[in-house]
């Protein structure tokens, strides 16, 4: 008798893993830029944590309560350098917006998801930059984050696939 194989038929995936994987992926992605040995002179990296956050919600809208942006946003604020509180507010508004879009659009396709994610990334990054620099010239601040927004919008499908991979791992039966 094979003692290692204790799987039972129809056994659900580990509850612990189902809860932890999405949160951990967002938190790790938020903290990752500060672990790389790179000193950037402009916002060069896409907001990794935000992209995972949006993709998880587009993929599994019922997985998180709508206030999940409060703790995850605070965590991102600690590492992104933006004033603490800006991601708390903007990520939560993004959650509410995704809930709204999910109700409005009967069948969301791939391009719907892409458009929603790109729109929210653009709005969040622009507002975050405007909050961080209230005295600076508005056009200059928006011009600063524009390249990052374009790159992020193009990277959304990649992050969707990555989120899908994580989701498969999350729901895998052991």
């Amino acid at each position, binding site marked *: 008798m094979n003692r290692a194989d204790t799987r039972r038929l129809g056994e659900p995936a580990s509850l612990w893993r189902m809860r932890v994987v999405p949160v951990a992926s967002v938190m790790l992605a938020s*903290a990752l830029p*500060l672990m790389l040995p790179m000193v950037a002179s402009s916002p060069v990296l896409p907001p990794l944590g935000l992209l995972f956050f949006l993709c998880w919600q587009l993929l599994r809208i019922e997985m998180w309560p709508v206030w999940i942006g409060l703790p995850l946003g605070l965590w991102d604020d600690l590492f992104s350098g933006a004033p603490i509180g800006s991601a708390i507010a903007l990520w*939560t508004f993004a959650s509410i917006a995704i809930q709204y879009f999910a109700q409005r659009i*009967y069948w969301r396709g791939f391009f719907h*998801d892409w458009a929603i994610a790109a729109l929210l990334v653009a709005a969040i990054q622009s507002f975050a930059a405007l*909050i961080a620099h209230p005295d600076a010239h508005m056009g200059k601040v928006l011009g600063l984050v524009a390249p990052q927004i374009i790159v992020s919008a193009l990277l959304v499908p990649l992050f969707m696939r990555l989120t899908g991979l994580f989701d498969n791992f999350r729901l895998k039966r052991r």
Partner: protein
Amino acid sequence: MVRPAARRPGQSRKAQTSLFVAYVIAVTGAVAGLLLAILSVADPVGFAALRVASHEVTAPVARGTRSVIGSISGIDDWVSAYVGAGSQNRRLRKELAETRRQLVATSALQEENRQLKVLLKLQDNDKAAVANGYLLTSTSTSSKRIALLSIGRNVGVASGQPVRGADGLIGRVLSSGPSVSQVLLLTDIDNIVPIRRARDGLPALANGRGNGDLDIRTLNIANNPFKPGDILVTSGTGGLYPPNIPVAIVVRRTPDGALARPLADPAQVDAVSVLRAYTPDNIEAQAVPAPLPAPAPQP
């Protein structure tokens, strides 16, 4: 993807209430977050402790990746250095010969300067650094340009102290933790440095653009005196930055001043030194000569 079931989760009163409560929490929290953000823009130091604590957590990882990979940020320069090696070599040799000639002339001037200073009994203004460290990493996803410095309060780094590399000014310490500190880079939009032109002392202000360049604005708006190639150094006005630290070189003129590039690229520098803040007590402490030893009693 099909839209989730109706917004009302069935007839269960409990489920309806919990959904409603989730929305109340979300909206209240988001508004509170917005207020918090406005507060922390107004008072960035107040919330620094939270951020420092989180950076203390990631700093060991950053140290590790740095020692393993080295600094990957200069990789584009390596590639272009290989491509342009031949012509660069010729140009550098020519420059070296020219620089040697200038060096001889300068050393003579230096000696003369030293003798004149001795005559004037001027103390050589000793700007001993508080400590030396290196830049570990920086924020790269937001519009703020904050770098992480590998030393903190353990060696006396405190907020407000200027940071410079070998080539010029890097920025100033925003907040310091037990073993790492945060440096607001020169190129951040909120970092304003009082400068003057090295050639003739024309005062101006350098303001970061957030993308690696600096906006230079002169204090008198009547004319635009800048020319490409002008070297700008700190003026020491307003305290904080000691005078005569190289800051930037003018690249081109703009309608309201000039566009300049910092002389020290934070992505390229290896070691940086943290200087004493240029405040009145520090200046006096440096200017006063060491007390003379008491004369030995005559026998």
